[in-house]
């Protein structure tokens, strides 16, 4: 089971109400390479991956939920004081008429989240390469969002998340090596 802690993984501050930035950030909430997709992808792969990397998938998958909460906090803080006029000016009137200020799992272009974002091939190497690619895509997305953002407080938290993608990618690469070693050992014995 999971146990919630009343604490963000890293502090989230925003300088000012900025629904335009929230529009970009929702990509990491309900987008193909977002935090929800990451959490669901890794936790779902655990059941068919060799025992040696189940712990890693569990822990990274769990950390992704902490990142999802940080993204939600950013979007919440960037939009909570926005007037309908400001939302309209930011290009999220379409979101507003359907959801008011509620968060929804869709990407920056408004496409709803879908399970097809999550791969599960059942082949350990194929799945781990998928995971490495997902982390690199998420890292790139964070960089594009940082490039679009002029909020120094927000960028501090976004840089933290970008760095976490690098660590996750690195650990998944190590997991590939662990499985290759295991596979080669079986041939010789």
């Amino acid at each position: 089971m999971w146990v919630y802690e009343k604490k963000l993984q890293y502090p989230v501050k925003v300088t000012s109400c900025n629904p335009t930035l929230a529009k970009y950030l929702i990509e990491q909430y309900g987008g193909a390479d977002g935090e929800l997709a990451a959490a669901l992808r890794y936790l779902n792969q655990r059941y068919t991956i060799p025992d040696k990397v189940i712990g890693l998938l569990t822990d990274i998958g769990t950390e992704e939920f902490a990142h999802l909460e940080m993204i939600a906090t950013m979007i919440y803080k960037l939009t909570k004081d926005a007037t309908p006029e400001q939302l309209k000016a930011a290009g999220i009137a379409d979101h507003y008429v359907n959801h008011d200020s509620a968060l929804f799992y869709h990407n920056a272009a408004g496409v709803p989240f879908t399970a097809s974002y999550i791969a599960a091939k059942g082949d350990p190497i194929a799945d781990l390469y998928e995971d490495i690619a997902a982390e690199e895509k998420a890292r790139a997305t964070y960089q594009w969002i940082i490039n679009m953002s002029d909020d120094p407080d927000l960028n501090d938290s976004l840089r933290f998340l970008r760095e976490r993608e690098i660590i996750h990618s690195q650990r998944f690469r190590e997991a590939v090596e662990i499985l290759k070693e295991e596979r080669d050992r079986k041939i010789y014995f």
Partner: protein
Amino acid sequence: MQSTLPEEFYQWMEELQAVDFVLVELTLYLDTHPQDQSAVQQFNQFAKQRKQIKRAIESKYGPLQQYGNSYSGMPWNWSDGPWPWQL
């Protein structure tokens, strides 16, 4: 929903976040380097430290976790804000 918290709360929370960052990093590292004795030692040392910070925060500001992972005040104070996104 939301009461203003003293500066001390934010300092403790940041301390907990810093210690937890070390623990998350060591957890993922040890998942792929399970034989690293000094990392395990460091992990256990920080695990102890996080318990102490958690206890200090909770004694003054209420439970951080539930399902019995934290004690409750009277009345039940788990639902008291502020929640993390309200800070």
